[in-house]
């Protein structure tokens, strides 16, 4: 194998909500152009972990972070780092589909560009079409671009949110349980999409569905009570877990 590059190098990351310590000294390296899954029972800190990667954790009142998160080798928590610029390089997809309710399908996809001042109609048209095609939604909505984003089905809304995130041409896709509100067919579509995205993007996906982690990811991190218990290739982690806790969790003995 040739030189492996890391998109994120997380060193001694700690996170708090008020006095509640939710992430405890996490150190982990996330590979470029691969899918990394973060699994663990509810409340283990997996959502907090990915929200620390694009500095979304700190927007919650009283939330705090310490430690380093190197993104392309540069610490996003250093004094000069601008959280707005950092977030533009990372797309985020949330647990519940959250299209902008007062915007059309077109405007939802174009939102990231429009809200940052880009008005060039031709460029917007291109970006919207390309992003919707990448999110495998184009064929379903191309004739209804003026309809409200909220008029779509749940699965379509989530793909719309993925298209919206892709439109700003991020380097990373952060997905926080993107399928937890979707039915199996919509879930299968999103999973196919995640595999396709991994060709060009670094994908980090939080899931409480172990089968999903096994299906879509190349690497898996198992978190428990704010601690990183085990991290490795998905195949190794699921077939030969090194830690007893991991084994118990993936075999369904607790969760």
């Amino acid at each position, binding site marked *: 194998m040739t030189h492996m590059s890391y998109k994120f190098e997380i060193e001694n990351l700690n996170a708090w909500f008020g006095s509640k310590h939710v992430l405890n000294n996490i150190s982990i390296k996330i590979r470029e152009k691969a899918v990394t899954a973060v699994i663990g029972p509810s409340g283990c800190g997996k959502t907090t972990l990915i929200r620390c990667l694009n500095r979304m954790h700190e927007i919650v009142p009283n939330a705090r972070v310490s430690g380093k998160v190197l993104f392309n080798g540069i610490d996003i928590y250093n004094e000069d780092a601008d959280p*707005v610029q950092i*977030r533009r*390089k*990372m*797309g985020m997809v*949330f647990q*519940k589909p959250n299209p902008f*309710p007062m915007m059309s399908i077109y405007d939802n996809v174009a939102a*990231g560009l429009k809200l940052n001042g880009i008005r060039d109609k031709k460029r917007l048209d291109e970006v919207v079409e390309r992003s919707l095609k990448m999110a495998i939604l184009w064929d379903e909505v191309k004739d209804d671009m003026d309809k409200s984003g909220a008029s779509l089905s749940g699965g379509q809304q989530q793909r719309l949110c993925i298209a919206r995130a892709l439109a*700003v041409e991020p380097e990373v896709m952060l997905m926080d349980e993107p399928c937890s509100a979707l039915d199996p067919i919509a879930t299968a579509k999103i999973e196919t999409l995640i595999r396709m995205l991994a060709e060009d993007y670094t994908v980090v996906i939080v899931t409480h569905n172990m089968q999903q982690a096994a299906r879509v990811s190349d690497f898996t991190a198992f978190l428990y009570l704010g601690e990183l218990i085990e991290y490795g290739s998905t195949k190794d982690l699921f077939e030969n877990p090194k830690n007893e806790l991991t084994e118990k969790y993936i075999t369904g003995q607790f969760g």
Partner: protein
Amino acid sequence: MAHYTVRKIVDRSMRILAYFALIAALIPLFSILGEVILKGASSINIDFLTQPSPTVGEAGGGVANAIQGTLITVGLASLIGVPLGLVSGIFLSEYSEAKISSPIRFFNDVLSGFPSIVVGIFSYALIVRAIGFSVTAAAFALAIIMTPIVTRTTEEAMKLVPATVREAAIALGVPLWRTIVSVVLSGAKKGIATGILLALARIAGESAPVLVTMGYWRWWFAGLNQPAANLTLNIYIFAISPFENWQALAWGSALVLVMFILGINIIVRAATREKYK
């Protein structure tokens, strides 16, 4: 089984009671509305809507100067009250964890419950004593009444925009101010417009604070540092006059005012209905 029968009887009698209460509450509304329309409609004609108030013994005349005065006063009050309330409401909604937010919210609620005559006296002490009875003094008092209403409704409307929608914008790398202006405000604009219109209707109908700040004026608008005619004052002054044509003008003024407020309420209903389409 007997238990079920009792429950059905109680259910039915409570429902009948509720209907009676509703009708009792609606009787005053409809009798006022009916009276105002009945007595006011006959005085409404072209002269009424285009002429200024008549002097003693003069026949005809209208309330056009009072409509003009009310619109200007309410307009000026909104120029102060709407931006002030809007910005305060945005602050309270978006920075609700700031230490200062809770006292601001408390005093805003206190202010919105203030008797309007007290606000009028305040404006009297501050402005009338400096520049005299004037549109400015009245508009200042009305702006103070309007601001807490706009603040409250803006805050409420903005809080209805889901946090997940804000997060979506922030995660796209949209700066916070832009998120607030383009995403949250735009999602809340109907609720905010409703609040502003209701505040407008409220201050257009205020009489006590206008009485102590505006002074009486029978002619056309003559400048912001001068008094102006006003619909609510017209009702007060014309209604207690001994002249029959003045009394008719009072009914007419009442009708114009009620229609203005009714119109605003209908606009609000139409605007908010669309939201749930």
